[in-house]
């Protein structure tokens, strides 16, 4: 009866594992088993394909100089990739435009209130607090849009413009 030869056995054989005697013994077993012979040929083809891949690649000639120049700088990768940056930027712009459109159409005109602190407990003689604070949602929307624009400019710089110019300058220096 033929001994069962697994893919793992064949791959270990291809990787050169086992002693010389074990390998000779295994070779004999494979020669007696046609299915194993066929499978060994298939795996061997993959093994040779992979072994003949391009070996060690060489970086640019001034690689070492570039590393030494950048030793005290932070790694160049930003938290956001250009793609994520673009998505966030688009989101910010859409939110800002929507907020501005709603504000200009008068949707927030009736939304204002006054926060009253008269009913608060405590000794008002010791701490002076205003009795009421007016709250206008339009001011809130304007602040929201302003913050969005500032964050948007920051994202545009960090995730899109800076990497583009950095890559361009590196390509030129190669």
């Amino acid at each position: 009866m033929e001994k069962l030869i697994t893919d793992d056995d064949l791959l270990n054989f291809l990787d050169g594992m086992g002693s010389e005697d074990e390998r000779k013994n295994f070779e004999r077993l494979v020669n007696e088993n046609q299915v194993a012979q066929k499978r060994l040929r298939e795996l061997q083809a993959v093994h040779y394909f992979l072994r003949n891949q391009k070996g060690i690649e060489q970086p640019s000639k001034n690689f070492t100089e570039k590393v030494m120049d950048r030793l005290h700088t932070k790694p160049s990768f930003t938290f956001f990739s250009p793609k994520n940056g673009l998505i966030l930027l688009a989101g910010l712009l859409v939110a800002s435009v929507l907020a501005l459109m709603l504000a200009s159409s008068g949707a927030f005109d009736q939304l204002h209130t006054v926060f009253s602190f008269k009913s608060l407990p405590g000794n008002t003689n010791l701490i002076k607090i205003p009795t009421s604070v007016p709250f206008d949602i339009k001011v809130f929307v304007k602040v929201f849009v302003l913050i969005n624009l500032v964050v948007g400019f920051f994202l545009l710089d960090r995730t899109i413009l800076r990497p583009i110019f950095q890559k361009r300058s590196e390509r030129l220096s190669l």
Partner: protein
Amino acid sequence: MITTQEEYLLIDRIVAGEQALYATLVNKYKSYAYTIAWKIVGNRAEAEEVAQDGFIKAFNYLSKFNREAKFSTWLYRIVFNTAISYKRKNRVHFDSIENSVVEFADRADQDLLKDDKRAFLAKAMEKLSDADRTAVQLFYIKEFSLEETAEMMGQNLNTLKVRVHRARQRLAEELKKILKEEALTL
């Protein structure tokens, strides 16, 4: 060629402030570091950037290198992790070796045959999971043992062995399919 002991002395001097000596280590390991990065990100310009960042990170953490592993393995692991996180952030697709066939179209028959084989392999490689593909590619970089590859990838030796075996089995199946299709089109 410097020995491990000489390398440790060199690291001590760099940590003590002689930073210019770091260039010796960069020169010694740049090719392998770059190759690892290239195998993972699949693009030369990005691989260069990743490898450089790996060296910079290694420099910043050099004082924490505890010498339990070889410096090279420690460094390659940093480069490997940098490349993986770069790829995750940028979703760089595996650069098919198929592309190189286009680059070198005018070559002798023997070379074309080699390129065909590479193209088949690249096609089959695309079917593998990222982790299996990386494992098998790093394993086949000359001079990296299974143990070193496992340490570099931060994986258990048996897990890596399973990955490499599984990847080759899958490649064999894919190549069989591809070559059968090719035969049908002849």
